[in-house]
């Protein structure tokens, strides 16, 4: 579903991502792990079409994110890091706008809005100004936005950052459920999160893929934490 081949991204002279390749098959939930500054967000931004790679290719469901960006983006629900939203809009109004932007109309749009608002526990806050929402609720709005057009692929950049323990648990639960219908690539630096929600982990360090494997296998190799620390210390 997601196919990344020899992806490289330079910021000026600084290589943020170097020769990254990986595949995510349909229906898998993959955790994208790595220390801060490892290139997780950059890779995700390239996949979502926000940045253009210096070299290499990436395709989503067979559509190249560089040569066929609109078709590729139509298949992605992307939630950027820190989840920027328009503070002057109300929750439902914002989701209504995003659904329209993603090409939904009429009854389908209204139905999807009702669905994501229920799914992301936003029912009580539909009419609240986004600027007045707490961090956790804003994150839910971002997730609802990613889900609204029912994309095949979800790319979530640190979906649980800044949430309280209850919210983290709810979000993980939701991601696990969504994994049954969507292919998900999510980044995090919380290892236990990957163990709980993902089937596979890709560990990235200094812009390169350090290791990747099924979470169950990595667990056998002395646990995810052990593997992670070993890689990042090298």
């Amino acid at each position, binding site marked *: 579903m997601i196919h990344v081949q020899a992806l490289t991204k330079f910021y000026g002279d600084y290589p943020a991502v170097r020769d990254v390749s990986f595949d995510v098959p349909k229906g898998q939930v993959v955790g994208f792990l790595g220390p801060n500054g490892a290139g997780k967000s950059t890779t995700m931004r390239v996949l*979502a*079409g926000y940045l253009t790679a210096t070299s290499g290719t990436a395709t989503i469901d067979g559509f190249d994110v560089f040569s066929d960006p609109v078709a590729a983006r139509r298949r992605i629900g992307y939630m950027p890091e820190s989840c920027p939203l328009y503070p*002057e809009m109300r929750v439902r109004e914002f989701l209504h*706008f995003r659904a329209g932007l993603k*090409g939904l109309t009429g009854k389908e749009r209204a139905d999807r809005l009702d669905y994501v608002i229920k799914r992301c526990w936003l029912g009580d806050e539909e009419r609240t100004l986004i600027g007045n929402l707490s961090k956790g609720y804003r994150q839910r709005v971002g997730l609802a936005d990613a889900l609204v057009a029912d994309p095949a692929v979800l790319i979530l950049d640190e979906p649980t950052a800044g949430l309280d323990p209850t919210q983290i648990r709810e979000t993980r639960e939701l991601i696990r459920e969504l994994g049954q219908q969507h292919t998900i690539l999510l980044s995090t630096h919380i290892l236990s999160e990957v163990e709980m929600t993902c089937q596979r982990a890709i560990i990235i360090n200094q812009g390169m893929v350090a290791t990747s494997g099924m979470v169950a296998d990595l667990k056998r190799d002395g646990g995810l934490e052990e593997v992670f620390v070993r890689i990042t210390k090298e």
Partner: protein
Amino acid sequence: MRTSLSLIRREFAAYFLGPLGYVALALFLLGGGVLFRFTVDLLTAEGAKGIEYPMQGLVGNVGFWLVFWVIPPLLTMRLFAEERATGTLEMLLTAPIQDSRVVICKYLACLLFYILLWLPTLLFLPVLLDLHFAWPGWSIGRALVAGSLAIPVGLVILTFSIGSWRPIGSTLFFAGLASWVAGIVYLRLVEKSVFCPITPGIDPMPAAAAYVGLFGSGAMFLALGLWVSSLVKNPIVAALVALAVNLAFILGGLLVLGGFYVPPADTGDAGFRVMSFLSVPLHVSQDFARGIIDTRHLLLYGSVTLAGLFLTVRSLERRRWQ
């Protein structure tokens, strides 16, 4: 199409969700009102004072150009700069929509608001042009044409409502449209009449030409402002830079209209020719407001507008590569 409409709707409605739209409207109405009063004084003055063309009093005045200099940057400063500052640009540019369409939608939204800004000044025209309305009384055709008032009502609902009111809004819009078309046809073919015969006391075409010039030059200033807004991160900086850029097209005219600079008697003077080529206040006060639609001016506005929009698209693309 739906995608574009969604974006235009949001950008247009955003003017009313913050103080900015109201500030621009209030400033513009205040300036327009003062100038209207000033023009009426001139039109009714006795002796050697007075003006040739009524729109010259309204838009050929230094005060007007000081207000008009500030308005377009106010409308464009937020469009991209704020999205960059808050990071929402990432959400917008990862949606399934081309960069060029994002630019065009944002541009159309601010152009629509700019047109809205000018609509109230149409109320000045009956006085300025000494219009006489000979209302012939209601008839079926006229009632149908009057039904077109449902169009703006429907549009307002469609702009601001997202819930159960939307079907009512679109019904009103289409019913108004149908009623208007039916009314026009009925009046023409069956009643062989017009909605309301108007006899102007003076030639109305110079006023129409003035609106053409103001629309064209406004479109140009907005495109420049949009480009500036895509280059910087802070809306205030975007407004200030846009003011400086617009000055290239305004300064000369301000100096001449304000009496700080007297154009040389030789109209072939190179410096003055350059200045009159660029200077929008001179175009409007000396050509458009006198009923002269000079295509050189329109060509200038059109080409700068296209250049501005093109550079905006490039500037968005550039940031993907950085």
